[in-house]
């Protein structure tokens, strides 16, 4: 009951914040930041999904960006070439991505572990971007594909502000879903799998099934985010989904902290906002984010949020210990 009340309180505060930020930014003439917030929310969705796979279940995959691209290209091709409605295109792209994830999962996830899994998914990501450039007649090649704005039942999301509300609501929904699922029986099974797969199996956990499930789930986050991303940018090109961005995802997740749900959101915010602070930071972005990651891994191995949580837990333990 206490948990429920807490989460209602949290939700209302979060939703209120989401609502008041854009008018505030407009007021102080920083409305261009709204576009950045949209990107943060979209990447945030991808990373929350990635945290389930890499943070909770401990399966290192570099294929996340490929599925992000699959959602984006799926939406782009279906809305522009076949004039499907954006929502239908998003759903079909999602189903397609899940189908591919199911097959890839059975071929790669169940057979390979650790570094071999990482390399195989890296190869998958590379193959995906080659496919994008290799079939220009279908995918538009390096020129890419243009899309109409996102719309739901005639309601058009054609400005940054409208899109901001759309993605923030989506990100919030994914956030609530993630926080709930990681506390469930399934979430604990993922952590058990991550800790010791053999012992988890001997506790009756079908770890193979868990791996496929968490892979498909994390891919769903990526695919939906990809569709939103495509509609926001209004065009897609292969370069947006190159393997470099997979590494960026890992940076964001580890800077913020794995296994927290929150961490990824903080990580993506930091890496997106830093370049806005100064031109120098923007020019040397890969260098800055790499250096930041190294510093954080050395001084806060659990990431920013992970370390904060630890800090509060310690304080709490001390204060309740001294109370006895």
């Amino acid at each position: 009951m206490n948990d429920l009340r807490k989460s209602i309180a949290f939700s209302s505060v979060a939703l209120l914040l989401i609502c008041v930020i854009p008018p505030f930014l407009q007021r102080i003439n920083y409305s261009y930041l709204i576009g950045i917030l949209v990107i943060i929310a979209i990447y945030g969705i991808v990373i929350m999904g990635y945290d389930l796979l890499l943070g909770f279940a401990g399966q290192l995959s570099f294929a996340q960006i490929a599925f992000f691209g699959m959602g984006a290209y799926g939406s782009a091709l279906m809305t522009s070439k076949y004039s499907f409605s954006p929502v239908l295109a998003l759903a079909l792209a999602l189903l397609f991505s899940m189908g591919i994830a199911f097959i890839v999962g059975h071929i790669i996830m169940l057979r390979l572990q650790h570094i071999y899994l990482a390399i195989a998914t890296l190869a998958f990501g590379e193959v995906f971007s080659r496919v994008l450039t290799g079939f220009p007649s279908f995918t538009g090649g390096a020129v890419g594909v243009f899309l109409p704005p996102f719309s739901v039942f005639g309601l058009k999301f054609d400005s940054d502000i409208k899109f901001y509300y759309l993605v923030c609501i989506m990100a919030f929904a994914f956030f609530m879903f993630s926080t709930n699922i990681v506390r469930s029986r399934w979430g604990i099974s993922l952590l058990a799998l991550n800790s010791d797969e053999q012992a988890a199996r001997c506790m009756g956990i079908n770890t193979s099934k868990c791996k496929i499930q968490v892979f498909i789930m994390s891919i769903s986050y990526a695919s939906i985010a990809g569709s939103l991303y495509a509609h926001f940018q209004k065009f897609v090109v292969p370069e947006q989904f190159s393997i470099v961005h997979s590494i960026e995802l890992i940076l964001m997740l580890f800077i913020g902290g794995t296994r927290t749900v929150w961490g990824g959101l903080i990580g993506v915010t930091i890496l997106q906002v830093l370049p806005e602070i100064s031109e120098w930071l923007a020019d040397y972005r890969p260098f800055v984010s790499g250096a930041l990651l190294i510093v954080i891994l050395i001084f806060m191995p659990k990431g920013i949020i992970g370390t904060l949580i630890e800090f509060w837990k310690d304080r709490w333990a001390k204060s309740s210990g001294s109370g006895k």
Partner: protein
Amino acid sequence: MSSQLLAVEDVYRFFGGLTALSNVSFVVMPQTTLGVIGPNGAGKTTLFNLITGVIPCSQGKIFFKGQQISSLEDYEIARLGVSRTFQKVQLFHHLNVLQNIMVGAQIQRRSDFLNTVIPGKRMAEKERILRRSLEILKLIGLEHKAHFAPENLPIGEQKLLEIGRSLATDPKLLLLDEPAAGLNDYEIEMLEQIIFRTRQLGITILLVEHRMGLVMRVSDRIIVLNYGKKIADGTPKEIQQDSAVIAAYLGEKA
């Protein structure tokens, strides 16, 4: 015949050219404790791995409650009620002590399925898992360390926690692989109490252990392995007087 809980029939296991187990057969009656002893490398842990499905048998069959389990996956065997501990502690280091036990307590049996889909029952199920886990925590004497990270426990308590995690699955058959290794005298006493409590609960135990005193005290029957072969099978008293066993442990008389 059908009353036996576990039946191992003509089991072989090869690793490349090495024969780890050769023609091993034995049965375990319900609510008894079977000690498995033998020198290092005799195949005791391999036997445990075969029974729990961690690795498949090269030949032979294993039956649990009359059902052949040698073709099942390890997690399926666990759900049937066969649980084990590991020679080298294998706890879930991403979970705290209580959660480690909860993983055991949330084992999914088919009859549980409805409990996990109906929301009202799901809450009741959660409650049941928590209550059961706290009970187990008390049994192994770690209730004051529920929120510790397992790696911060001394090795003895880690071993007890591993047993607790297995007990939480509500097993019919519990396989303990050298539970006393690394334990101090006080902890061994605690372990012995837990084993006796476990027996009182009607759980059948298979015990691999090098501390002969402990094995002799808690076992109803003992089998002895040497170089992958079963060389003796009997009550503790018979085993202690068995010439083949004495030869295996102390070497042949010149």
